[in-house]
């Protein structure tokens, strides 16, 4: 059972992949496009936003390649941020949306920036939640493991050592369990943890491997964020262990956006503190899409 069901479920075909999208209609109201994030989860991670936002706006969600109702593509090129941006443009076209306020979580914030760079006329504003954009160095314990990402993992691997290409293939469920534990430092997060692990089980370590090899965009991330011309709101938790709070501060500074710091929140404030996040999104949309 969902609190709200989509009015339209459909798909586009683009660059060799079927991309599933949903429309929650609200005639005459501004469009809010909820972007996909890292393909380890799919669009249901917006489940605490959709029912509320759809009462006030027309809401569109879509699954990126690799999860949900989209194809499990194995070509790394299909997972670049520019490919996600191109999917978003085609979904906006298919749904008849001239422009939208774009909301992106984690990597979805990076996809939103690419969307705004490629098609600024389609983006009324961007809300970045826990943006995972390399504007500042990652947390030290994560930086270290990037060096050994493609090497064999030791028998006694633990913690962030599980963020490893081979480990994903051998122990995907255990990696997901660890990863979402890190995403959810707030107490009483058992339901979001169960949800995220279940969505992750709809894809595989092989798909994450393909995604990890996606090419970076030509434009430097700092320049891209600074060049985004639309209004920006950044929401970032102080206990985000995936993308440090400093990145949100930097994203807001570079984009001349506003920053909502959520004290004590982890990487998924949209699920653990949905009311505050929803009210902030609503205030932003009312301001930029009036």
């Amino acid at each position, binding site marked *: 059972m969902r609190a709200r069901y989509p009015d339209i479920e459909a798909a586009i075909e683009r660059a060799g992949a079927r991309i599933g999208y949903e429309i929650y209609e609200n005639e005459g109201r501004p469009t809010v496009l909820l972007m996909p994030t890292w393909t380890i989860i799919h669009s249901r991670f917006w489940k605490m936003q959709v029912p509320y936002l759809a009462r006030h706006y027309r809401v569109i969600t879509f699954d990126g390649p690799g999860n949900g109702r989209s194809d499990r593509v194995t070509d790394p090129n299909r997972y670049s941020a520019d490919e996600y941006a191109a999917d978003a443009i085609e979904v906006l076209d298919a749904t008849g949306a001239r422009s939208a306020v774009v909301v992106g979580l984690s990597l979805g914030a990076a996809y939103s920036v690419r969307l705004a760079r490629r098609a600024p006329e389609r983006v009324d504003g961007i809300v970045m939640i826990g943006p995972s954009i390399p504007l500042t160095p990652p947390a030290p314990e994560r930086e270290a493991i990037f060096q050994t990402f493609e090497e064999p993992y030791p028998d006694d691997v633990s913690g962030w050592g599980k963020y490893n290409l081979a480990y994903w293939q051998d122990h995907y469920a255990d990696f997901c369990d660890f990863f979402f534990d890190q995403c959810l430092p707030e*107490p*009483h997060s*058992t*339901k979001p943890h*169960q949800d995220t692990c279940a969505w992750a089980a709809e894809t595989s370590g092989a798909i994450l491997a393909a995604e990890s090899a996606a090419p970076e965009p030509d434009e430097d991330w700092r320049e891209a964020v600074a060049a985004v011309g639309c209004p920006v709101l950044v929401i970032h938790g102080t206990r985000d262990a995936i993308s440090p709070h400093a990145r949100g501060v930097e994203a807001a500074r570079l984009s001349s956006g506003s920053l909502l710091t959520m004290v004590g929140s982890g990487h998924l404030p949209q699920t653990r503190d949905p009311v505050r996040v929803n009210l902030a999104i609503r205030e932003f949309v009312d301001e930029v899409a009036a």
Partner: protein
Amino acid sequence: MRAAYPNTASLVDRDGAEIAYEIYGAGEPTILMIPPSPITHSRIYKGQIPYLSRHFRVVTFDGRGNGRSGRPVGIASHTRAANVADAVAVLDASGTDRAILMAHCHANWWAVELAAQHPERVEGLIAIEPGVPYVGHPEPHWQASGEYWNLVLDDPQGWQLYNRHTITNDHRAWVEFFFGAQLVESHSTKVYDDAVAWALESTGEILADSEEAQDLDLPTRDVFRAVLAGLELPVLVIHGDHDVCQDVTRGRELAELTGGEYVELKGSGHLALARDPVRVNHAIKRFVDRVGRAR
């Protein structure tokens, strides 16, 4: 922060123990929420108070031994009679002539005695996962506890933690085990943290005293069942079918004996009021509306 704050918070002096009570909402009828103390206090009803006080007047209190009430020690301070008298004193102090009683677990025994002794002050009973004797099947782990209640066990495990020595000396171990066992629903971590914290506001000594006091002056089976059958008031019984403190057969039979309405919550444990508050609240609201209309 609470979703609803009381209009009045006060104390009533009761035989050497101060009893703290709160009044929410206004109008008629009044629901008096009797807590199953001293393992918990009035906050166990935090999922009910904000909703019900929008519709009715709600009076809550902390039982002797926990919350903002006094901490009398000794078995003689925790008899059923003392707990019933506390509830009556709260009715008096809060200016409540008549109330619908709402109780959880063993507080239902006190509610039944109050209704039997003061029928003119009670206009209904909401029995949530009721713990009353001689009705339904007692849980085997409670029955077995009589054998080791007074023993000092080497390494008590599970339900063996329910003995005077462990409860007195390692209060937390018992409380954590007990609420862990009761919260059979997934995603109960917040309720668990709340329930353990409220329990630990009391002491193991007081809890052990109160457990022994509950069974003093036991009525006979026939007498007690006659009391239940003789209650001339509307009754609502709510029971989860996965309750491992009060077996669901208790709720079923209590409803039969009293001719009450019965709501069984599938998959719910002993703390359905905290884990499934909307269903519990709606059942209570419908019942109180009906009792109010019949006045």
